[in-house]
């Protein structure tokens, strides 16, 4: 009988008890004795030279402890970038310094110029207003193409231009790709923008720095998706604090979506200031501040072309993308438009030749980095929009065009022309499932019914693939990663049999505390309630690379499996001793060890007690205790894939689009907790549909953020969505990790934007607006109406 709290069970999330009752412990809930508060004075111009900072008046205001400027960080390093991309010519990317506080120049609205630490938050703010900064305005560069023009003002004076890198992938294929376009029977091209987004987790960023002079011990409490990475980057590169003197704690974190992966200047500031002032120093971002200091996402401008032969087989794809880096390189920024984007340009299709060119550009805007999906939504959007356009241009069914070009189940493992090898998949299966759940067969009838009410109905499909569980370390090292991408786990079995699991995968909405316990409960056969998952504190969890890229279960979960297997192996030996049998003859079932073919058995707690009270114990062969650590470094990415179908109704009078139904048929491999997976997909869909219809981060030509609050940045609300149907029954388990899992966190945000836009174009074409081949996201009512009335 399957366990009701093991693998495959929709166990309710145990962490929700504290979250839903308001008892989560977030960073802002941490208030240390003697704590002081910092407020950052941030630039209100996009580009300027700092001629003078006069903080004398501010420094003597009530409650002020100290006003910091860049001079106070002369011995500190810059905020490091964790990935070095090599350009088309074999040269490393241009990598500017990212100071903790602006040095000489401000480079975006929100760039911190000075920081006031005071007894209270309001005193710090008051004093910040009294700092006099003399800034000479410089002409900002906002538009990426303008930033690359001859003679454009430079964001960084010491770089040769605003070009971070010009990347070609696969550079050796370029000529062959061009030749394929020369021989093509059809060529379809599309220019589009992948709109810039602000992650907007519910919890804004917070940092509390603390210093214990007696032990020379630093502690940073921070809203992070990966506290170990912050410890590594900040300790080694910024503040020169060795790991054993630096503890980083990320307690409950209220959402990240990528924006809390990175090491931010405010973290280094609070850690350093706590030592200087011998007081804990706390920073809590306001929502307004989050808009101008959290890393943004997406922001690509792309031209993509598809070559087809006379039978509509895809023969080549060629893309040219401008990717906005913002003013500085955020931790993983360079890798997003390259290795997480170019490698996915094959999609689910057997296109033999692909060339991806990406120009990463510095502009006077907030740094841009990974946001849910990170590079893969950009790849999927262009490809799936282009295929839809191709189908229309060629007069064929977009579903059939996809099917004709799908990689077939018998072709796995499949080597794509863009480096990655897909291990497994069945794309027709997910597409069939989606069409069935969407009741596509009777769509025309529903379209007629809408028409009778004066509305336009449309159906859009998209198929996606993503590369998750980012790894293996030796490969990503070759690609420029400056860190390994394994994960680790420690399983500490306690004397009475309860189990403490320590994982490097931080949880901030993913439900690890529930899912990971299910995995261990299943393997050992004990109650999940006897297992507790610890994460988020570098002082008691093993080295972890963090939670992003849908990697937690695939990589972190695999480390847990490995460590649990080690525990079981040892426990088996102890049981064999207790039962006076050979370890090979010992079976573990439902938390009980027995000698095969006999009724001799000892239960789990009997073994664990023996491990810690080793009176009757093979001390000469085995150490006492039952605790194991494992590191898992995957041999490949995992490749979740799926078919998404979106049915919309468009009001032709106002241009407003309503989502009527959204079907997601995903292949996530094996599923540990179906309810949590469904929730992850819902969240991803909300963000993907948000990008498609609502969200847009917009700068004016002076670099002022026009969408700097919820008055103008349209966050999706619950009533913007309805009719989500999520299925994950068509699964092809991952072939190279022990759980056979692929990852589900980003899929919704990757597959949904093209499905929504394809549905809108479908509705418009059905109503005769055939001149509209594309509308850039977000498809706001005004944009749709303007396209219809051009």
């Amino acid at each position: 009988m399957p366990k009701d709290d093991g693998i495959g069970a929709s166990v309710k999330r145990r962490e929700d008890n504290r979250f839903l009752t308001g008892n989560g412990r977030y960073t802002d809930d941490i208030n240390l004795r003697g704590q002081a508060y910092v407020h950052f004075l941030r630039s209100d111009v996009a580009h300027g030279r700092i001629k003078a900072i006069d903080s004398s008046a501010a420094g003597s205001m009530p409650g002020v402890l100290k006003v910091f400027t860049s001079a106070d960080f002369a011995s500190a390093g810059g905020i490091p970038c964790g990935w070095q991309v090599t350009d088309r010519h074999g040269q490393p990317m241009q990598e500017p310094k990212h100071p903790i506080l602006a040095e000489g120049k401000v480079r975006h609205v929100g760039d911190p110029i000075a920081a006031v630490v005071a007894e209270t938050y309001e005193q710090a703010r008051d004093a910040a207003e009294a700092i006099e900064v003399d800034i000479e305005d410089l002409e900002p560069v906002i538009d990426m193409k303008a930033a690359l023009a001859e003679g454009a003002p430079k964001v960084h004076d010491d770089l040769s231009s605003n070009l971070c890198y010009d990347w070609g992938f696969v550079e050796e294929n370029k000529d062959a790709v061009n030749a394929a376009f020369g021989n093509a029977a059809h060529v379809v091209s599309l220019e589009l923008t992948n709109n810039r987004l602000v992650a907007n987790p519910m919890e804004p960023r917070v940092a509390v720095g603390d210093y214990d002079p007696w032990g020379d011990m630093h502690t940073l409490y921070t809203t992070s998706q990966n506290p170990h990475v912050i410890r590594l980057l900040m300790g080694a590169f910024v503040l020169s604090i060795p790991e054993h003197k630096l503890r980083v704690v990320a307690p409950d974190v209220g959402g990240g979506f990528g924006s809390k992966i990175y090491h931010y200047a405010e973290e280094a500031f609070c850690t350093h200031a706590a030592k200087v002032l011998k007081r804990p120093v706390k920073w809590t971002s306001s929502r307004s501040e989050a808009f101008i200091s959290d890393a943004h996402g997406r922001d690509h401008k792309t031209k993509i072309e598809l070559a087809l032969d006379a039978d509509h087989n895809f023969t080549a794809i060629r893309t040219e993308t401008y990717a906005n880096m913002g003013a500085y390189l955020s931790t993983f920024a360079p890798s997003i438009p390259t290795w997480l984007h170019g490698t996915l340009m094959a999609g689910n299709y057997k296109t033999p030749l692909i060339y991806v060119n990406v120009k990463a550009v510095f502009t006077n805007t907030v740094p841009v980095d990974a946001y849910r999906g990170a590079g893969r939504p950009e790849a999927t959007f262009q490809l799936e929009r282009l295929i839809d356009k191709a189908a229309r241009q060629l007069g064929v069914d977009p579903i059939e065009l996809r099917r004709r070009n799908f990689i077939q189940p018998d072709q796995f493992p499949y080597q794509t022309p863009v480096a990655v090898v897909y291990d497994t998949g069945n794309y027709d299966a997910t597409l069939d499932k989606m069409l069935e759940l969407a009741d596509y067969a009777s769509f025309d009838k529903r379209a007629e019914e809408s028409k009778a009410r004066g509305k336009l109905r449309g159906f859009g499909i998209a198929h996606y693939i993503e590369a998750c569980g980012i790894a293996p370390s030796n490969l990503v090292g070759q690609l420029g990663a400056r860190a390994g991408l394994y994960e680790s786990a420690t399983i500490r079995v306690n004397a009475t049999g309860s189990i403490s699991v320590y994982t490097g995968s931080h949880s901030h909405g993913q439900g690890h505390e529930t899912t990971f316990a299910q995995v261990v409960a299943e393997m050992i056969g004990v109650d999940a309630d006897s297992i507790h998952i610890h994460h988020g504190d570098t002082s008691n969890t093993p080295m972890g690379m963090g939670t992003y890229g849908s990697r937690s279960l695939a990589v972190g979960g695999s480390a847990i499996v490995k460590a649990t297997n080690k525990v079981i192996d040892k426990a088996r030996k102890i049981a064999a001793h207790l039962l006076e049998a050979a370890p090979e003859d010992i079976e573990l079932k439902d938390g009980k060890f027995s000698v095969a073919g006999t009724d001799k058995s000892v239960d789990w707690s009997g073994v664990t007690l023996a491990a810690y009270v080793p009176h009757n114990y093979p001390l000469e062969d085995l150490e006492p205790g039952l605790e194991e650590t494992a590191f898992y470094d995957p041999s490949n990415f995992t490749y979740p894939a799926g078919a998404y179908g979106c049915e919309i109704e468009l009001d032709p009078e106002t241009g407003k689009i309503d989502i009527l139904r959204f079907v997601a048929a995903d292949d996530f491999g094996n599923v540990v907790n179906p309810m949590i997976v469904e929730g992850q997909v819902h969240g991803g869909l909300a963000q993907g549909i948000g990008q498609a219809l609502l969200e847009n981060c917009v700068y004016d030509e002076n670099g002022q953020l026009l969408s700097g609050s919820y008055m103008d940045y349209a966050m999706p609300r619950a009533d913007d969505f309805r009719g989500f149907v999520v299925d994950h029954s068509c699964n092809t388990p991952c072939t190279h990790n022990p759980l056979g899992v692929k990852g589900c966190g980003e899929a919704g945000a990757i597959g949904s934007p093209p499905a929504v836009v394809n549905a809108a174009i479908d509705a418009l074409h059905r109503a005769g607006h055939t001149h509209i081949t594309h509308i850039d996201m977000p498809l706001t009512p005004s944009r749709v109406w303007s396209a219809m009335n051009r």
Partner: protein
Amino acid sequence: MHAFEFVKPSSIADAVKALASGEAIPLSGGQTLIPSMKARLNAPEVLVSLTGIAEMKGVCRDGDVLVVGAATTHAEVARAAAGDFPGLAGLAGKIGDPAVRSRGTIGGSLANNDPSACYPAAALGTGARIVTDRREIAADDFFQGMFTTALKEGEVITSVRLPIPEASAYAKFLQPASRFALTGVFVAKYAAGVRVAVTGASEGGVFRWAEAEAALSSDFDSEALSGLSVAAEGMISDLHGTPEYRAHLVRVMTRRAVAAAS
């Protein structure tokens, strides 16, 4: 937020006295004022709360006029006006969210005169009279452009007198981010004629659409509007809509308001 003093008088007379200093401003529901103070865009020395003044609260009928106390919340109007003036109740019930409606007030909304706010359309669309501590101001004279009204310094709106129409409705097209009105139209039909007031669309703030009023006064049917249009010139241009789009929405929302009212 900067430090400030807070007083909570219980009569209009005391409120006016407290406001006479020149450094004080009224605080009603605080749904506009408090966020602007938190953002340090506004730093009054003294806040004079109006929400403890019983004579400024509540909804009552005075013949053909609905009298709404200036400190009456949107939620209260949505509830109390539902019988006598469903068009107004419908408008109030769609402002913001439940939290905003439980605090925000009609007086605060009119005094603020946000170009995208809903109540100005109802006040202008009914030809309401804005009653202050010292006079009555006709809605036609009260709204003087974005965030600008006829109120003098220290003048407090105490109530709003809205003539009850035979039929009325408010059609609001939501600005996707704020969910204020991207364009909202209030239509009210009286024996003497029809009034049409438009909010959210114009750079000049809430305005009356005279041609539509004339057409609807002779035939209160959405068909009567066909052929009519407003110029895009002078309409707001922002992230959420072009002037042409807003001009178009004025027509669409007027038609929808008429259809809903009739």
